[in-house]
């Protein structure tokens, strides 16, 4: 096993430079100091209405950390704590800078946590991004952060490829300081970039896995290699990673999943997965006669994009489109459910777009096979048993763009929450299509070992 330093939620894992405990301790100390400072400031300004809110948020974030911590192995620093520290900073920044920076969706008053919201407080909170560019952040990363936070780049594969591409630029523009070597120093240069991306949106499992791989490569650079050669070779490694683990993997998955589509099939899919899209288009290319039911739902309504690409070609696939509540009425005619994934946990649970679990559940009760397309680089060492333990909330500014009728605005006692993911229990899944073959969810944990371990 390639000792995962942070066992449970790998998506956040890359957020901290694992190789630099000293640096990490320092940033934690800094953060604690900052929190103390804020708390002191709040104590001083007790009279003002927004202040007690923030302090309660701070307190409650501590509470969440302890409860979350129980579930985890001894993590050096819990990600949620980090996220919350960022959140507090963010909300503080937004109160002060709201007027000067008219960012979309930030025109509402700072988010006040009603007490009921506390049960959701551990979800990744939508954060104002672009307000806090601290330190030496590469312009490509700042740009990417904005694209992430606006959901312009969305989806596990797209985000991972975009991040790695941006890292290539960062690496090319990097010069090693005179007193250090690239293998020691580059990671300390990259970690604030990663932190910035995470502040835009919580990290995906794919990004975490790719960053871990990148770190491994960086630490393996020979100190005698000329800097430019080392950078070239790193960029090549990144290109290879994208090619081998994503592009080629998708091609293999296309072929394997395509074999499962027969003439006359009715394939049901949910939202939009780039792999599923390729599988369907490829099968159509091969001349198979099948139809597709695209089920869609808020918050993102990504199914429309899939629908467009499936029907735009010279010979469009016959498609039916419906929203999630319509599913039971349509399921009787479906021969296979084909969905993508954000991540796959070692217990076989699929972490994917919210709604996937219900699709799989209903398919299971109707005895329709559920096939998940997932590259092996999305595998995670952790175990997850409940979609509530970790999730991400889509900011209102993004959901509003997607809906015709106006979403209601949060008011007293009323909050609008848009969880982005849910967890499909392995029992609902018939098979997972990976580039190493079709496997039942119960065998997921054996894949990293079968791959010779080093690659996860």
């Amino acid at each position, binding site marked *: 096993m390639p000792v995962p330093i942070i066992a449970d939620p790998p998506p956040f894992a890359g957020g901290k430079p694992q190789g630099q405990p000293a640096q990490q301790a320092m940033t934690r100390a800094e953060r604690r100091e900052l929190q103390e400072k804020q708390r002191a400031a709040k104590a001083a300004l007790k009279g003002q209405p927004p202040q007690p809110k923030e302090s309660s948020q701070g307190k409650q974030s501590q509470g969440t950390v302890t409860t979350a911590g129980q579930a985890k192995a001894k993590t050096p620093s819990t990600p949620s704590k980090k996220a919350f520290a960022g959140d507090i900073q963010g909300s503080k920044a937004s109160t002060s800078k709201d007027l000067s920076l008219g960012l979309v969706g930030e025109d509402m008053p700072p988010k006040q946590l*009603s*007490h*009921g*919201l*506390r*049960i*959701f407080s551990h979800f990744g909170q939508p954060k104002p991004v672009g307000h806090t560019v601290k330190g030496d952040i590469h312009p490509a990363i700042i740009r990417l952060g904005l694209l992430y936070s606006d959901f312009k780049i969305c989806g596990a594969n797209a985000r991972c490829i975009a991040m790695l591409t941006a890292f290539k630029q960062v690496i090319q523009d990097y010069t090693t300081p005179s007193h250090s070597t690239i293998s020691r120093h580059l990671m300390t240069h990259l970690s604030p970039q990663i932190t910035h991306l995470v502040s835009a949106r919580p990290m995906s499992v794919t990004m975490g896995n790719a960053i871990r791989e990148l770190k491994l490569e960086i630490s393996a650079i020979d100190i005698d290699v000329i800097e430019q050669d080392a950078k070239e070779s790193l960029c090549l490694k990144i290109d290879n990673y994208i090619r081998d683990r994503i592009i080629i993997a998708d091609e293999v998955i296309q072929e394997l999943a395509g074999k499962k589509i027969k003439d006359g099939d009715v394939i049901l899919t949910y939202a939009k997965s780039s792999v599923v899209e390729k599988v369907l288009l490829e099968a159509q290319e091969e001349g198979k006669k099948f139809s597709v039911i*695209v089920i869609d*739902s*808020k*918050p993102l309504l990504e199914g*429309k994009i899939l*629908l*467009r690409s499936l*029907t735009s070609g010279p010979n*469009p696939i*016959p*498609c*039916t*489109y*419906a*929203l*999630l*509540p*319509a*599913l*039971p*009425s*349509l399921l*009787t005619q479906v021969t296979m459910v084909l969905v993508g994934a954000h991540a796959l946990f070692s217990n076989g649970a699929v972490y994917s*777009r*919210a*709604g996937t*679990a*219900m699709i799989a*559940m*209903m398919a299971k*009760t109707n005895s329709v096979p559920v096939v998940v397309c997932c590259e092996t680089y999305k595998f995670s060492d952790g175990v997850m048993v*409940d*979609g*509530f333990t970790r*999730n991400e909330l889509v900011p209102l500014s993004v959901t509003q763009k997607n809906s*015709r*009728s106006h*979403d*209601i605005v949060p*008011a*007293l*006692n*009323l*909050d*609008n*929450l*848009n*969880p982005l*993911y*849910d*967890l499909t229990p392995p029992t609902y899944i018939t098979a997972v299509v990976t580039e190493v073959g079709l496997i039942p969810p119960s065998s997921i944990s054996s894949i990293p070992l079968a791959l010779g371990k080093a690659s996860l």
Partner: protein
Amino acid sequence: MVSEPRSAAANRSVEVLASKLRRRQIVGSRATALETLLVLRQVIAKARFSNLEQLVAIIRDVGRRLVDAQPKEHSVGNTVRKVLHHIREEFHAATRGVEVPKPASFSISKFVLQGQPRKQVAVQKSEAKGTLRENDPDDPDSFARGLKPVLMEAIQDVLDELETVYDNVSKNAKDHIHSDNLGYSHDYASEIILTLGMSKTVEQFLKAAAHVRNYSVIVAETAPSYNGREMAKSLSSSGISTFLVPDSSIFALMSRVNKVILGAHVILANGGMFAVSGSLMAATAARAHSTPVVVCAGQFKLTPLWNLYHEYGALDFGNPSDVLGFENGDLVDKVDVVNPYYDYVQPELIDAYITNELLKETYDDEDNEL
């Protein structure tokens, strides 16, 4: 024989309601029940009959026309059945006096197996009316003259019941929702209820419970109507801590939900129900998490009908432009868009029905087929 409603005005009001039902200008079980009742009242007021069979035939004819106009609105047929039941009750009371009341214990299964107990109340008021003769050769209208006033009273009772149905369903709300009032920690301990769409009955039920209990409600938006927004606004305005979520998140949130409370469109004799689409998924997700599912519905939604193939019978389609509007013009041409109205929820997915006065009001077996 005088079997047709003579009055053109009454006839017209039946036609108007039938076409409104057909065009879905009136939807929802309570609205249709109310309208049906008003039309029946008008029909009875105008009808000419000289014996019970004639009156029943008139009402049944009206009922059949309304039911045929929109077979999915079961409360129309239920209302007609109930009125017929009242007519017989009043007739028996007026001609033969009070019947022997049957034992009062009652359940849905007995409702299916044995029919229903005779009503024992509302009889007194007609006792004073004295003799009532069918087919009086001297004065054919005397029967109608004698019966009509008590029928009007009976219909008023049914109207009152529809008016008060929410109160009666909500009466026991606090027994079904709990909260922990340990002061500081109550935020974490209080119950979390999940509901979906906009059901007046559920709304009133939850508001009634909110007077005495402290709890949170998660409302699923329920695409494509997004009626959940209305529900969420209403609940939050009466001080209930409310979260509006998209339908997609129901499964993810279910592990924190203590109870699922749904509304019904119609409750069938086998214990299953038709409800707004999305209900089946919520109920199935609840079952997957062993979360209880409670359905709140007025008695007028209970119908004596059922069959084995409700999954297919549930299909009833709404306007596809709510799902994919013309702003996606290029897509609209190329794809099929479906927008089913109702789900059939199997009885095994439902833990309990909360309704009003099941004991008192029911129908007669012979009216099951109108």
